[in-house]
């Protein structure tokens, strides 16, 4: 596996990232064992792998929420030392601020930026419209469905126009139909904003539909097992894609890679 040369043209790059955790019993568990991952500007990159392999941990390291024990992460060439609005994040559980209205949530980052009230209201409304949620500005998160909450979360992050959008199994908590609908929405939004996206999932159809490239991770201690280019032409039709033979080949290949990981797990440390 060749290490990507230090490129100024990479939006986000992780080089030889390592992370070790100490369990309650004092045991050292290596979660990430030298990971090289990168995303070019405007690319949609997915991280797939068996449950608990550490792909979310890598995402948090990319975002600056977790410090790696080895290696480094650079965003636009600058070393990432902590979280910041350049790297937005969307979580599976939405993480909306429950005490704020939908508008309050979306405006949050703009308030932190110091955007004046009239302009930030307009911008917030624009991003809500982009996720097809115009009209619910005054609602509280508890009144929304899961799909709506996630769209608010996406709008909230996009409103600060981050360089990179990190998504941690964002549709995992949603039912199949909402999930499919949001995948299409995300594609539409990405086609118009062309934000660089790093997307964690373990749904292969989702990864193939959304991504330009897919990193496949091994079981813990995680390494990059393969990097797959998704050569299906854009714009992609979610239904029609399923009939594309290229899709079937890719799906088969990915499933094979993951299956060998699952059987390799000797059950000694079933990761959570």
């Amino acid at each position, binding site marked *: 596996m060749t290490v990507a040369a230090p490129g100024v043209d990479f939006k986000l790059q992780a080089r030889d990232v390592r992370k070790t955790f100490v369990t309650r019993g004092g045991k050292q568990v290596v979660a990430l064992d030298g990971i090289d991952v990168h995303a070019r500007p405007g690319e949609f990159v997915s991280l797939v792998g068996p449950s608990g392999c550490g792909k979310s941990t890598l995402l*948090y390291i990319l*975002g600056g*929420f977790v410090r790696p024990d080895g290696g480094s992460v650079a965003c636009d060439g600058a070393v990432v030392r*902590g*979280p*910041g*609005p350049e*790297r*937005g*994040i969307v*979580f599976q*559980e939405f*993480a909306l*601020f*429950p*005490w*704020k209205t939908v508008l309050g949530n979306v405006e*949050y*980052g703009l308030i*932190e*930026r110091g955007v004046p009230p009239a302009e930030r209201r307009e911008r917030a409304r624009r991003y809500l419209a982009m996720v097809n949620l115009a009209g619910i500005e005054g609602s*509280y*998160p*508890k009144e929304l469905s899961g799909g709506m909450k996630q769209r608010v*979360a996406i709008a*909230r*992050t996009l409103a*600060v126009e*981050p360089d990179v959008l990190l998504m941690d199994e964002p549709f995992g908590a949603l039912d199949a139909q909402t999930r499919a609908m949001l995948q299409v929405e995300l594609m539409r939004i990405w086609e118009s904003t062309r934000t660089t996206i790093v997307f964690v999932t373990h749904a292969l159809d989702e990864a193939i539909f959304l991504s330009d490239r897919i990193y496949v991770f091994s079981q813990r201690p995680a390494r990059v097992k393969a990097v797959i280019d998704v050569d299906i032409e854009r714009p992609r039709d979610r239904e029609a894609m399923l009939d594309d033979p290229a899709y079937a080949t890719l799906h088969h290949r990915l499933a094979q890679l993951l299956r060998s990981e699952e059987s390799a797990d000797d059950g000694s440390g079933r990761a959570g």
Partner: protein
Amino acid sequence: MTAADAPAESRPNPLLPFTGIAIVLLVWEFSPRLGLVSSGSVPPFSDVVVAAFGLFADRDFWGNLAVSAGRWAVGLILAIAIGVPLGVAMGRNRVLFALVDPLLTMSYPVPKAALILIFVLWWGAGDLSRIAIIIMGCLIPIVISSYHGSRAIDNRLVWSARALGTRSSAALFAKIVFPAALPQICAGLRLAIAISIFTLLASELLIRQSGIGSYMFTFLDDGQTPQVWACAALLATIAFLLDLGYVRIVHASLRWFEGDV
């Protein structure tokens, strides 16, 4: 018998709660009159009501009530001002927690009423002791609920805020940690209100000198039983209304909250 044949569950008669109260009042009214209990200790309900009106007309009643209310308010406000930030900070800082928690755990089972005498020895029988004992009484529930409120916060909320540009710990505290912990904090405050009233009254009954507890005790000394009962009933009513009012206010302010406070 299928589900369709099962009788529909009828709603309980809405008059039932009032019926329960009415029964108690009737028993209260007639037991002393019929000699079932000594009317010297348990005056009939109607006598208590008359005595209550007498209290309303008594300037001393209002004066003492005001004194008590002042102590209570100061004690409670100070307990909140100390306890909430302390509890929330303990939830986020392990060192602080390790320092403070043992002290709280040790003082938790100590009956605060016993401490009243110690405070009196130390500070005399004035307002300082009364206020101190109120603070002692309700500090622990406030700290504990604030602590749990801040511990239970989903860390992803904090991370989201950081990824939206909030940098300093202080800003995260004020904008994210505190509002997220608020429902739990409010639950603890409700308890603190009840405890503070109780502690205040206990100290006034014990040390007397002034305040509604002392005022009430005087009637006991003089054998004016209906007035004693009237005082107790009025205090109970005030406490009940405070609690009711508090719950209403919290519900209105925390409309965004998904659970129960």
